[in-house]
Each structure stands twice: as C-alpha cells, then as structure tokens.
C-alpha cells in the first residue's frame, strides 16, 4: 500500500501482517491488485444501511454492497432477526430443517418456469453443478460460454491462470457476447455434442463497460437451445433479484432451463441456489450435491425474509429509480467538466466509465478521488445499488463526484 497520507494506517498494518500468513495478503476479487492499491481501504470494520466503515474509521457510501449480496442494505433488522431466530434453534444440523422446504417452495413460486430448487453456499457451487446436470440430462460433453464472462473459480471457468491443465477446458468453448455468428459457428462445429450454454443475463466483464443484449440476441440463443436440445443455463448470480424478482430472464424476455442465484438471495447470508425445469428434475437428482454447511438453516431463514421484503417493498423499482438517478447524475456531472461518460448495465447493477480512456488511468483517478471523498467507486468492477440507498445518499455521492471530476480536470487527465 503506498498511500501518501495516514488514512489507511490500520489497513496497512493489517495487510503487512496478512502478507506474512495469507497468500496474496487478500486474495480473490477483494485483493488490492485488482482495485486501487493505496487509494482503496483494504479492511472493513462495520456497516449499516448503505454505509460502511473501514478499520481506520473512514466512512463510505457503499456502491459495491459486499460485491452484490447486500440488496436491502447492511444489517437489515428484519433479515437479521429472522436469521438470529433460526440460529437460536439450530446452526448446523445432521438434517435439513423445514425452512429448506419452505424456501424451495417460495423460490419455485417466484420463478415461473421452475419446478425444483437446490441450495449451496457460493455461486461457483451452483454454476459447476448446473453444467453437470446439463451433461447428465443430455448425455453430451460440450459447454458453450461467452468469452470474458465470469462464472466462478472452478478450473473450467476461473479467470486465473495458475494451477490449470489444458484438459480442464477441453470441452468448454467460447463465443462472443452479442455475436450470433460466433455462437452459430460453435453450434455447427459441435452439433449433437453440446450439453449446455451458460450465460449471464447481460455481459458484465471486469475492466470493461457492461453490455446489454442486442435485440434478437437472447431470442436467438433461446431458440437454438430449444431446437438443438441444449440446456440453457442462466448464471443470474450477480444480477438475480435486482432486475426482476422472478429472475433476470423476465427482464430480458426469455426463459432458461436452469437458473443460478446467489448474492441478493439472502442479503449477505451465505446461500446460493439453482432452480430448474421439471424436465431436468431426474438429472438433477442424480448429480451428487453436498457441502458441510449447505443445509444450515439461518441463511435460508434470512433468504425467506429477504425475498418477502423485496416483494412487499417492490425493491426492484426502488433500485431502478435510485440507480437511474445516480447514473444520470454522474453522466451529467462528467459532461459539465467536458467528459463523455458511459453509463452501462442496468441502473440497479450499473457501471460508469469514460468513453475515451483505453488505459483506464482517468477512470482509476476518478474512482480514487470519489472514494477518498466517501463513496466507494470500483474502477474495474460493476457497482450495485441497494434498497438502503436514498435520494439523499445519491445527491451526496453526486457532490463527491463533481469534486472528483474537477480534480482530474485540473490534473489534465
């Protein structure tokens, strides 16, 4: 960490200790190397609503929301009370609790095409399992995915380079987002051997603006999968429940065969789920699925509460409204200083970038300056809105962004 002031002293101390005993110091998506070393806090202390405090006491309006899960805001009282009630009865049992059945019923009623649900803890658990279900159902080998899409950390999809064999991806093939021709090429090349196509509802690669589906893209993919007997898997882990409570496919107007949820499903409690069509039920029952904590009831109770609140409060509309206010305001603020800004992705899961900034330097300086003023803007990863963000929070953020634009303009960036 090369911070020029004392804002991150405690973070620095902790990181120095971590570097002695933890590979990478902080690994994965939260690692400093993929953010802004020296301009981002490394360790967080506590959080409430749409705000959190780092270990040095710096306060931030949170536009990462724990990288997605905090859809209702941190420490939501009803969700936490539901989880605590359940935990008083049991944390980890030899058997599933009734809450697992209730949650499966609830999810199946929310997601129209689905007939069943299973649970795990992380997104990767579910995307990888879904591939197996697709292979079991079709008795085929190939999986098609979009180049640059993130589906987790297993060897078939990890964005990392290390520890892999060429053979790990022998049957994984990539096409380009919104590029029907490249999809059709793979379809032609591997016709009869394609088990599944796994995609996110919109394309949200790190280090790039998000891309919405072009008109006709999803209908084409969906029709091809139906025609060819390919299982269409929607990885809705990042956007799930933020665009439509019934799944992001409803927002975009198509229907998958399997849908994977995580993040917003339980407002920060560790839970993921896959839901599927009845035709895939037998295959799903055959593919072994388990984990040490996967039947733990408190997260499921949190999920029940979270889903109920989102439905009651129409959280999807709230996120769309505040997200639109934020992104419209940021684009206007940039324009005031002569910058052409690109607001990409849906307003509830937005990302902001400079139109002409191929090296990302301007983006990095801008996000560092906003973060310094008290709103965490990741320069390379899409952002998240929560129901706890109020119009006042958005207005305060826009004030910080205005100052940040002024700073980078004065620096000639």
């Amino acid at each position, binding site marked *: *960490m*090369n911070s020029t002031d004392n804002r991150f002293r405690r973070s620095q101390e902790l*990181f*120095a200790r*971590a*570097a002695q005993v933890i*590979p*990478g*110091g*902080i*690994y994965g998506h939260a*690692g*400093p*190397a*993929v953010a802004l*070393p*020296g301009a981002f806090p*490394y360790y967080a202390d506590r959080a409430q609503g749409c705000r959190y405090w780092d270990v040095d006491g710096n306060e931030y309006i949170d536009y990462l929301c724990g990288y997605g899960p905090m859809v209702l805001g941190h420490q939501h009282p009803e969700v936490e009370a539901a989880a605590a009630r359940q935990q008083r009865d049991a944390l980890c049992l030899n058997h599933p609790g009734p809450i697992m059945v209730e949650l499966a019923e609830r999810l199946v009623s929310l997601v129209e095409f689905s007939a069943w649900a299973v649970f795990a803890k992380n997104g990767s658990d579910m995307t990888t399992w879904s591939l197996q279900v697709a292979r079991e159902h079709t008795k085929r080998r190939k999986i098609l995915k979009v*180049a*640059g899409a993130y589906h987790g950390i297993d060897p078939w999809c990890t964005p990392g*380079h290390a520890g*892999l*064999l*060429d053979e*790990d*991806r022998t049957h994984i093939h990539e096409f380009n987002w919104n590029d029907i021709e490249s999809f059709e090429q793979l379809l032609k090349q591997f016709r009869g051997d394609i088990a599944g196509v796994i995609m996110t509802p919109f394309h949200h690669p*790190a*280090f790039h603006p998000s891309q919405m589906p072009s008109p006709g893209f999803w209908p084409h993919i969906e029709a091809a999968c139906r025609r060819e007997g390919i299982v269409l898997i929607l990885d809705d882990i990042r956007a799930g429940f933020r665009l439509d409570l019934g799944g992001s496919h409803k927002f975009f107007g198509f229907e998958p065969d399997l849908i994977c949820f995580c993040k917003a499903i339980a407002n920060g409690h560790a839970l993921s789920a896959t839901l599927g069509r009845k035709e895939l039920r037998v295959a799903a029952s055959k593919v072994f699925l388990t984990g040490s904590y996967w039947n733990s009831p408190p997260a499921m109770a949190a999920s029940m509460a979270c889903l109920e609140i989102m439905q009651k409060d129409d959280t999807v509309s709230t996120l769309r409204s505040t997200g639109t206010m934020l992104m419209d305001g940021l684009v206007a603020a940039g324009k005031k200083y002569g910058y052409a800004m690109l607001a990409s992705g849906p307003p509830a899961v937005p990302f902001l970038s400079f139109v002409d900034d*191929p*090296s*990302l*330097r301007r983006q*990095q300086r801008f996000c560092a300056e906003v973060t310094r003023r008290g709103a965490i803007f990741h320069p*390379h990863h899409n952002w998240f809105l929560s129901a706890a963000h109020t119009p006042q929070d958005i207005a305060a953020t826009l004030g910080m962004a205005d100052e940040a634009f002024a700073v980078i303009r004065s620096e000639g960036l």
Partner: protein
Amino acid sequence: MTHAPANPAVLANLYLSAVLPCLADLTDQDPVARDMLGDLRASIVLRVCNGPAATVRFAGGKAVWEDGAVRAPSVILLFLSNGHLNAFFSGKKWAVPVLLWGGWHISILARFSKLAQRLEAVLDGHPEVLETSAGRRLHARLSLIAAGLGLHALAQGDDTARQALRSLPHGLASFAIEGDERAVWFDHGSADYAAGWGVPPRRPDVRIVFTDADIAYGAMRDEIDTLAAVGGGRIRVEGLIPLADGLNFVMERLRIYLKPPAQ
C-alpha cells in the same frame, strides 16, 4: 495452462532476440564484463542455416545488438539448425558452431566466449553472481530485459502465448525498476508486436514498476508473492491491469524455455 512443450524455433529466436541483446546492458552495468570486453572492436554474426540471425557489435567498451546479419562482420558463427543453436546457448559442449568466417580472429572469439559465459552466469543466477547485492541487482535487471524482449519471440511463435495474447487488450506495457529511466517495453498492437529496452516509444498503457532491485529479483525468480507485493506497494501496476496480468502469464512461458539447468 503453461504445460505445452517448448518450440525449438521459438527458443532459438529467444536466444537471438531476447538473451543476446542483454550483452549490451551487461557490458554497461557489469565491471567484470567490461574487463572482459576491454578494447574489443568487432562484429559477430550468429546465424541459423535458413533461419534467424543476429549481430553483436563491440566498440568503445560497449556492446550493441542488431537484428539480422550485418554485412562484412568480423566473424560469422553458423548453426546448422535451431536445435544446434539452442544446444550451444544451453552450454552443450558438443554444440560448436561452424566458423563460416573469421576463424583467424582467435582473440575475438575468446573474448566473446568469455562474455557469453558471463552472461549465462548472470542470467542463470550462478551462486557467485547472487552472493552480492550488486550481482542480484544485475541478475534481476537482465532477467527483466530478457523477459520483456522475450515476449516478442513468444508472440511470434509460441502457440500458448499467441492464444493468451489474443484475449488481451491492445496496448504498450513497460516494466522497470524504480529509479531507472530505462524500461523494457512490449507493444501489443492490433496487427503486430514490438519490444525494446530503453525509453518506450510512447506513454505506456500500463506501467509495472518494481520499487527496488530486490523485489524485481524476487519476482523474476518466482520467489515472492507478487500479489502481496502489489498490495504492499512494492510493485506498482498503473493503468491497463488486464494487459499486465496477461503479459505476466505469457512471461511464465519463458520458464518453460529458459529454465536454468539444475545447479
């Protein structure tokens, strides 16, 4: 996925266009090499039969590398195949080049041989080099140069590297040790690649800066946790991070090609 075997043509290109150019910096930075060089004034061409060639010119106490064969050199060393050249550079005693021209320049050949041995010792990190901080610094610096220049050879011929590069954003990356105004750079263009050692031809899209020679030494030898070093500010990555990350992966291919012999 770094398990694909080495391609002999790429290795020969690496020796000629990434390792051999290090002689320039070696003679600039290393007193031992400068003593070996003395007042040598000569040009030596190394050429593979029906293959690549490179020239090293020695004059004024310096070495200068040039791509291809210059006209009228003092000495021409011919290798019958890429494998022959690779065996020579990896120290196989039987792999003596054919002296196509200049065999009578015994002193030139003797001094070149000594310089080549010194370069090998520094790049491979022989114990006598690494026992001093100056030696470690030199090893790190030359390893960095060879790795950066090696990107070009890999980009031209190594299938794994080419596949990785196809998924990377275009741009110019520079790698430097802080305080040194020279950097090794690699330009990943849309149509072609370029690499060099010195001042980059334009502002890099990403700069990778090692804050001191020790951290560069550790990083080049794969002996430190580079992610922790980035988090701790000992390695700075400024700009187009995906390009730096991808080039780091491509550079790891060099270990398949240029792994020093067990000592």
